[in-house]
């Protein structure tokens, strides 16, 4: 199988490696393009917990939109707790400010007993719409995101998948 690679001229080998590099970079640039379009640092997120049941289950894929400035009560937003990199998907239950004043939100998971004040960083009792919120949920696909959960819980899966992809693209010459 690898002897096929050995018989290639150096330029052709460079062309094969370019094919694989283009697969990766196109996937990445599509993601970034979507980010720019939605103005969200992470336009697609996976639900990690059951705190929004029965609306969202663990493993659901959510599509975000971050260009809506006037987030209303009842909208579901995704935010990062200051200092932590874990996105949380919860519903807005109160809003303060808005219009010319900076918008502040209080959130709560549908399936939680208490609001998110406990989850926020120490000293923080509300979310800043412009700084903390990644986006509002505008659509979702159930269950598809479970792959991402598996990939993060078993990191060797990531390397295995990438290695397999690399092998197939570089050795294939169609």
């Amino acid at each position, binding site marked *: 199988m690898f*002897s*096929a690679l050995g*018989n*290639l*001229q150096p*330029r052709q080998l*460079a*062309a094969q490696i*370019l094919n694989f*590099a*283009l697969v*990766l*970079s*196109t996937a*990445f*640039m599509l993601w*970034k*393009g979507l*980010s*720019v379009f939605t*103005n969200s*640092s992470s336009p697609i997120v996976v639900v990690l917990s059951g705190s929004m049941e029965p609306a969202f289950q663990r493993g659901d894929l959510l599509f975000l939109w971050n260009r809506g400035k006037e987030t209303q009560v009842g909208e579901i937003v995704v935010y990062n707790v200051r200092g932590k990199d874990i996105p949380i998907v919860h519903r807005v239950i109160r809003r303060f400010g808005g219009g010319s004043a900076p918008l502040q939100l209080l959130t709560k998971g549908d399936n939680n007993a208490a609001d998110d004040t406990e989850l926020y960083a120490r000293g923080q009792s509300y979310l800043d719409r412009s700084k903390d919120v990644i986006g509002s949920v505008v659509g979702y696909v159930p269950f598809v995101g479970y792959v991402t959960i598996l990939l993060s819980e078993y990191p060797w899966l990531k390397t295995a998948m990438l290695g397999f992809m690399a092998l197939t693209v570089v050795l294939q*010459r*169609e």
Partner: protein
Amino acid sequence: MGDTKISPHSLAELKNTTDDALGNYLRGLKFEQDNTKLDVRLAIGYASVVIAAATFAADYKLGWEATKTWTAVAVVAYALLNGAFTYWMWAVEKGCVFDGVREGKKISVASKTKKHDPTYYLTVSSANSGSKQITAPFTTWFTADGYFVAKPFQQWLASSVEAIGNADSKNALRDERDEIASPSPEVELTPQGNGTAEASGTDGKAKGSKRSKRKG
């Protein structure tokens, strides 16, 4: 080249192996390969990969907010470069497998295959004789179990393409070609009869010379 076995049912493998063999054969005949088309493709491709890598690095180091504008610019640039890349492959390269020069004469070879058709279509343009399409089934130079045999391939190329035949006279089968075009008459003079008249009433004309083609 080693005895690499390929799947004779895969059209892509048949074509790629033949393309590679063609390149090797022509380079062996001292055709100087001109890599400009491939180089431009590699340049455009790797430029876009570099842009993607730079965007990745910037995002990793500085985060989303700080790099938003650069990312937007990079995405547009990447899309343009990729478009150029695809255009180059489709319109300019157009199946080119070899561009070269030998003794001042340019030659350009492009290959293609059609779906479910085990035939090799070659379009050869040389400096003096314009563009010519030649075809042959892959079975001409592939065994049933997928081994490539160089000799029939080289013979087909050398006898079908003037420029290649000029470079490789052994495989060009020029003698055979010329013989079929205008067979040389081999006149065989049979020994004459003694010319004396025969009582049986024949003309007495001696049997004339016999014309026969002597098999070379």
